[in-house]
């Protein structure tokens, strides 16, 4: 952990080591230029991407890969929009073929307006994907039992929500996240709920390995500037976690010596 001071603080998921602890989504930007600029400013080394039908009437339309180079940035295909295990597994099999890698983000969602993780569907899909050789980073409820069970099944990262997807409410469950973390040994990532930089800092101060967010950057008035803010927020939170905060006390404790006062 001393490495943090020397700038060598890294984390490893499924055998891949990263310096940045910020994972960003690539959705909901104005255009692909803004997407690329925000990712650059965020310093993220992993980005989530969605799998969708090609627009066959416009085959020459610019594609994400033209702006965000998968050789430099790790693409983490997600299953956003999948409401059943079957849809999620199909989607990720296609993603594996399109991208050629096994590391994926699984999310099986319940209905709008909450899009809350559907845990029975998530378990079903995780089981099938792991059996099929995928390395599954899993979006899940902030449920301590589910987290441990997903880890035991072989998921490579546990990623509970801090608040509903795209809500920007900030972490509503810091105590629960801390309690879940106690029993998770694979990377622990807060995924969803971050609204602004301080939320990301709080997640990192709790001891999360990384933070995953999208809307907080994409829906900011200035996404590129917010991406930069998030980069620093995650670094600040991480350093604060490593440094170890002072104990809270009810009452003052003077910072200046009480001896030598003039009389």
């Amino acid at each position, binding site marked *: 952990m001393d490495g943090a001071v020397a700038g060598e603080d890294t984390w490893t998921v499924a055998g891949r080591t990263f310096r940045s602890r910020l994972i960003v989504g690539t959705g909901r930007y104005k255009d692909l230029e803004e997407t690329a600029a925000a990712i650059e400013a965020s310093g993220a080394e992993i980005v989530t*991407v969605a*799998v*969708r*039908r090609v627009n*066959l009437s416009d085959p020459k339309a610019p*594609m994400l890969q033209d702006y965000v180079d998968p050789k430099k940035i790790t693409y983490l*295909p997600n299953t956003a929009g999948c409401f059943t295990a079957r849809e999620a597994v199909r989607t990720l099999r296609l993603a594996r*073929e*399109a*991208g050629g890698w096994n590391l994926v983000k699984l999310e099986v969602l319940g209905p709008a307006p909450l899009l809350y993780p559907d845990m029975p569907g998530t378990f079903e899909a995780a089981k099938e994907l792991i059996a099929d050789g995928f390395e599954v980073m899993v979006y899940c409820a902030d449920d301590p039992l589910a987290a441990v069970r997903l880890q035991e099944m072989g998921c490579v990262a546990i990623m509970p929500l801090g608040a509903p997807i795209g809500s920007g409410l900030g972490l509503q469950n810091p105590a629960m996240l801390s309690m879940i973390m106690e029993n998770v040994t694979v990377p622990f990532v807060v995924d969803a709920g971050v609204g602004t930089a301080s939320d990301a800092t709080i997640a990192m101060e709790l001891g999360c390995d990384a933070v995953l967010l999208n809307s907080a950057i994409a829906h900011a008035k200035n996404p590129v500037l917010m991406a930069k803010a998030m980069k620093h927020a995650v670094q600040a939170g991480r350093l604060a976690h490593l440094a170890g905060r002072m104990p809270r006390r009810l009452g003052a404790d003077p910072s200046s010596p009480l001896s030598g006062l003039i009389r």
Partner: protein
Amino acid sequence: MPSTVTLTLNGESRAFNAPVGGALSVQGLLVLLELDMRKVAVELNEEIVPRSRYTETCLASGDSLEIVHFIGGG
């Protein structure tokens, strides 16, 4: 007269001419559609078609294909 192959592509029915004296392959279809093969993935009747099998996988009328790629997502 070239024979016609009617496929369901991403949910829409489309007809293609099969090459003279042969069948339309996934490879041939992607060329006709002008798609960059390195950036897409293909599912034929809900089974993945590995890129290595594009040339040998032949299509027949009634087949249903999903052709996908990566887009921005959270």
